[in-house]
């Protein structure tokens, strides 16, 4: 059953990324150069919309809070984000969109994937020697979210308030920002 879901959701995700033009490096690079906010609007709206529905469905007990997965916060999250951002800026691809772009027939994405496989391999090799370094110092206690997720595993920054009361307005701000951002400044 889980494999069928993997196939259906994977195809849907690849299809949606491509139809939203996230697999087009031109669109990514011009977003990062602050010339074309199309994808920024897509991302802001997708996050806001999914977050609002997620916290409504969690409050109604329709979605199982056990499905949530809050990742740990540590120094390496910011440093790794900076490295990823550098390669993202030059290429216009990230780990998800490169495989979709390859499926779409973009040849440069194949070289990106090849480099990616080697980058991940280098990380696997050196992980043992960096795992006790300052890069893995936790921030704010580690696996922490802004709002209460009602799971034993994760702590929250804003406690004693119903999650939807905080997460709802944040989600609405994301969606409103998507509407307020201007469109594109250059032809693409």
């Amino acid at each position, binding site marked *: 059953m889980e494999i069928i879901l993997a196939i259906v959701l994977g195809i849907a995700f690849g299809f949606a990324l491509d139809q939203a033009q996230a697999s087009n490096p031109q669109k990514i690079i011009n977003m990062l150069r602050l010339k074309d906010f199309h994808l920024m609007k897509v991302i802001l709206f997708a996050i806001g919309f999914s977050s609002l529905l997620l916290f409504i469905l969690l409050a109604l007990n329709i979605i199982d809070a056990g499905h949530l997965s809050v990742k740990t916060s540590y120094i390496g999250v910011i440093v*790794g984000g900076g490295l990823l951002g550098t390669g993202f800026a030059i290429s216009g691809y990230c780990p998800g969109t490169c495989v979709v772009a390859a499926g779409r027939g973009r040849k440069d994405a194949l070289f990106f994937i090849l480099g990616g496989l080697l980058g991940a391999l280098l990380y696997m090799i050196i992980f043992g020697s960096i795992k006790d370094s300052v890069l893995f110092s936790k921030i704010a206690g580690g696996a922490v979210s802004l709002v209460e997720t009602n799971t034993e595993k994760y702590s929250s920054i804003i406690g004693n308030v119903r999650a939807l009361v905080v997460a709802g307005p944040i989600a609405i701000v994301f969606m409103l920002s998507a509407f307020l951002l201007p469109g594109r400044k250059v032809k693409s």
Partner: protein
Amino acid sequence: MIKELNWLKGGLFLGIVFLAAVWLVKPIGVSTQFVIFDGIVWDIFSPKLISENADSHTFESTNAYLNKSGGKYAAHVKKPFSYGFIFVLSMILGGFISGRLSKNKVLGSSRFYPEVWQDKFGETSAKKRYFYMFFAGFIVLFGARLAGGCTSGHMMSGIMQTSLSGYLFTFGVFAAAIPVSILFYKSKKQ
């Protein structure tokens, strides 16, 4: 034949997929699967990389990364028909289907580089693009593994759940990506 979606429909569609994934299985993430793929290849050439503990049916690896979190990645390398790996392989198919159905095809030079690249480096720069793509892919996946996730897992799925790590990651990405892209693609004409 379909035309690409406007930002609102694109955002709605992507938002629904992210939500459906959490609802039915777990939040979407991609970059871990690069490690699983590497592990599968590595395991072929080095049979001693991963061993199964017969009593507990868990996996152990001589590689510290595959061995972390109770050998979670080692188990996925040994049993690659897992949710995450099939999900990422299916994304390739999603991109392919989208391309077949789309009115706007990826044709000519855009198969090798985007227009911004051509404006900066000219029409005979495909090889240079491939070299840079290899380098970019290398630091993107190294960075994603150091961060413990990528644009899908940290930024989209993370911020959706109001995870602090999602905000920290996003800050790191844009703090680097905005200045680098502006400088790297600065036009000579202006």
